[in-house]
Every structure is written in C-alpha cells, then in structure tokens.
C-alpha cells in the first residue's frame, strides 16, 4: 500500500466516527515573503469529545497549523470550519493554552480566570462568572487559591489556573500548545493525567501540539504525524489504548509499539 493510500485510509477511519467539531480541508499556507511552504494540503477532523495530537520535528508547520486553527492567521488556501462556521479570526468558542501559563501578575487567580469574559463581555459579565470560575478552580484542584496572585503559584499550579481561564468561555475546542513542556518531567506526567481527567469530565474536544511522542500517545485518540518542507500530515495514527489512560500504560508493549511506529514515521526524513 502506498503512503498516500495509508494516509487516505487512516484519515477516513478518523473521519468515520461521530460528529466533527473542527474540520480543516486542504489547508495551504505559503509565506511568500520568506518563500516558505509551511502547510501543504492539510486535512484534519476533530470529533466531538476526542483528544487529538499533532507531532513533528521543529519547523514541520505545527505552529502555523495552530495559528490558523486559533484564528490568529488566515490560511493561503483551504477551508477552516469550526462548528460549521468558517474561522475568520479569534473566537470565543476556541480555548487556548500556551507553553507558559501567561497569567497577569497584577490580577488574582480568580481575576485571571474571568479575564476572557471581561475582555469580551465587560466587567459585569466577568463578575457574574466568578461562581463558575470557583467551580473550575475546584475542578483543577486549586480550591482556596482564588485570591492568590500568580507570583505565589508554582509552575504546575499556574498552568492549572490557565486551564480554568481556557475553560471559562466554554469553548468548543481546546487548542493546547505544548502546555506542560515548561514543567519538570514528574509534574508534567501528573498534569497530563489531570488534563485527561478534566477533558473527560467536560466532554471536551482537544487538540494538542507536542514534541513528545509518549505524551501524544498517552493522551490521544488520534495522533497526526507531520513532516516538514512542505509541512504536511503523513499519517493519522489511531490509538486504541483503553480509557481512562494511566501512566502505567506507558510501560506496556502496545504503547511501545505505537511509539515505535510513530518514531519510524518521523525518522525517515525528519532529520535530513
């Protein structure tokens, strides 16, 4: 079977499931000024309640893909549809999380969490959402920290607060840009399990950008493997490990074989 056929089949399998929340069709991005073909005909479908990850070496177009999906940059060509409407800019039904927690140090945890509401709907609306924000704090295990300033939070706690800030607008899709890569390994593994729990409890649709194959596999239902020059998806790997996933699964032969398969797909050209 040719590579294209494998890709087509795996995409089909991914698309055959339930209802799509986010759909990218034949998305191209060319930076003419630098003459870079960042994305080449990217197809991507995020099902409701699914967790997907994209993995690839630096410069494979992951960041560009995320910028387009978050409405920060337009594609050169192709259709980008979230909940049936084209994405033409930042939207409140898109939740984002960055490598850094990026909390405003002059606002308390609670004020930081309702910031997206304050920006979009004003102070009164933000005030009205505080109750929900407190519930979110409890969900992420930060109960009692609502009046603490970010300077007093550890890296992991700050990222928990930023999860709350992402969830407060009840977004249809969560875009996670290497969310825990600034944390130490132990905290990171733990936070990944927390992320799984939180996503499951909210029935969230999530899309993770990461450098770590293990992280992608342990969290995801589908892992998209990207390659650079031009940036493209070469395979959508469906992960059949049962849910909820546990850290122990990382030592199973099934997990190892999936990781090996993805690494194999990456290695061929990634380091040329």
């Amino acid at each position, binding site marked *: 079977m040719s590579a294209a056929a494998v890709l087509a089949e795996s995409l089909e399998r991914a698309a055959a499931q339930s209802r799509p929340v986010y759909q990218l069709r034949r998305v191209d991005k060319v930076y003419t000024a630098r003459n870079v073909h960042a994305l080449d005909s990217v197809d991507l479908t995020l099902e409701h309640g699914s967790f997907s990850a994209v993995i690839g070496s630096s410069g494979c177009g992951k960041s560009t893909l995320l910028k387009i999906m978050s409405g*920060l940059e337009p594609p050169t060509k192709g259709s980008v549809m979230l909940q049936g409407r084209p994405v033409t*800019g930042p939207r409140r039904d898109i939740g984002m999380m960055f*490598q850094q927690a*990026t909390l*405003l140090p*002059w606002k308390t945890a609670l004020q930081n969490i309702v910031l997206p509401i304050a920006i979009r709907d004003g102070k009164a609306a933000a005030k009205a959402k505080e109750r929900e924000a407190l519930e979110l704090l409890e969900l992420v295990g930060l109960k009692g920290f609502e009046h603490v300033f970010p300077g007093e939070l550890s890296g992991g706690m700050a990222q928990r607060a930023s999860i709350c800030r992402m969830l407060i607008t009840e977004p249809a899709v969560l875009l996670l840009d290497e969310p825990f890569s600034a944390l130490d390994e132990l905290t990171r593994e733990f936070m990944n399990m927390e992320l799984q729990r939180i996503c499951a409890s909210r029935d969230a649709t999530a899309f993770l950008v990461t450098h770590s194959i293990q992280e992608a596999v342990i969290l995801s239902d589908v892992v998209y493997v990207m390659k650079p020059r031009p940036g493209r998806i070469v395979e959508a790997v469906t992960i059949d490990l049962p849910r909820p996933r546990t850290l122990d699964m990382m030592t199973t032969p099934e997990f190892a074989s999936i990781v090996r398969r993805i690494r194999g797909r990456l290695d061929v050209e990634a380091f040329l």
Partner: protein
Amino acid sequence: MSATEAVAHARRADEVDAPDTVWVEHTAWIDRVPRAISMIVLFVGFVVVWQCVSWLGVVSPIILPTPGEVARDLTVVGQNLITGGYMLTALWITTLEVIYGFAIAFAIGFSLGVLVGETNFGERAVMPYLVAIDTMPKIAFAPLFIAWLGFGIESKVALAAFIATFPIVVGTAAGLHAADANQRLLFKTMGASRWQTLMQLKLPAGLPHLFTGLKIASVGVMAGAITGEFLGGGKGFGEQIRVAAAQLNTPRVFSLILYLSLLGLAIFMFISWLQRRLVFWHKSTVTGA
C-alpha cells in the same frame, strides 16, 4: 542485626564518628551590624572628619563652615519654618513649582510616551525629535522660559516640567513594550481590542518602567525649579540660597540645601509609596530598585 541493635549502632556511630559541624557560613562582622547603627556611625564619622578639617584650619571658614555653625543655622531656619516665617513661604513657593512642574511633566510625558510606545508614527517620526531635544542641555533653555513667561513662578514651573518630561516619556514608552510575547498572544486570542490591550495589558505591565521614569523625573523637577530660581529670581527657596551665597553666609546655604533635600526626599518617598501600592506584583518593588 535486630532493629534495636541497628538503632543502638546508629546512635553509637553518631556519637563517635559524627562530631559537631565545624564548617559554618561566615559573615563579615561589618555585615552583621544593624543597619541603623551602621548609618549612625557613618554619619558621626562624617561629622568628626568635617569638624577636624575645620579645627585644623585647612579650609577657610567662609568656604566650609563648622558642623556646629551649620547645626545652629539649621535650628534658626527650622524655627522660621515652623513658626511660618518667610522661609516657609519660600519653601511653599518652591514646593508649588515642583508639584505643578511634575504634574505638567507627567501629563505631557505620559501622552507623548503613549504616542511613541503605541504608534508606529510616534516611534519612527516623533521619537527622533524627542531624543534630539533630550540630548540638549535643558538648563540652557532657562533664559528663554524667563523671557517668555517672566520672573514669576511660571518660568520655573516650565523649566522644571521641561526637564522632568523626558524621563517620563522614555519610561512610558519602554513600559508599553514590557508585556511579553505570550501575553500579547493571549490578548489576541481573546479578541481584545487595541484599547483593551493598552489599558489592561500594556499599561499595567509597563508600570515598573513608568515608575523608574517618575523617580528620575522627581530628581530633575527639583533641579529645574531651583535652577529657574537661581536664574530668574522670585521668592522661592532657590532665591534664598542664592542670596545667602552672595552674602557669603555659607552655613545658611548648607542648611537651606539640607531642608531642600527633605522636599526632594518627600517627593521620592511619595512615588515609592505609590509604586509599592500599584506594582506590588513586580520584583523591582520588593528589592526597592
């Protein structure tokens, strides 16, 4: 080995093999002296050296009065100030010049700073002119201000404001660039307008820089007011200093400068207090930088 044996063994080993720690951190004795005592000792030492210089007659008493003379004059001027004499009037005039000058400098400096920091036009077209003016010795403008605004308080306020404006421009403009890339990205993804980004991100994030500018300006505004009074007369504290110096009343000059420094200190402390209130979240506030 049983558990009790192990414990006994450990205890014995502890007694025999582990002597008290002999390696302790050493702090120089001068760093262990309480701050207040260090400061008092320094002050006393300074006065003693000063007194010795006077006794030995190295310097003429007209050039350098003794500490005693200065202390006597400090009480004379102090009494005048407390009883609401002409010294208090003079100090009040200078204080007003400083306050007005600072307020004007803040209004103009902050506006220009936002223009320069927030717009391309400001950064590319306005900033070069500001830099050019800033490199000029601003005190040289004093005769112009006197010619334009007369010998009253206005010319002093103008000079004070003129000197104090530039640090505030620079502080504000630099502050508007202080928000990091992630924070800007966050505001973009939240769909924040330019105004919202300015008010809720860039200005708060820039406060540490703004306060640095304000502190530099607070020094300049005093210098401007006093220079204006030296050159343009009037009834302020600078004029009192000039008159005393002209009469070779050096102890008076010293004591007036000391009282003037209290005014400068008050302004500086007010700004520091404001900074602690508003920028409590930034490390510069903790270290007092």
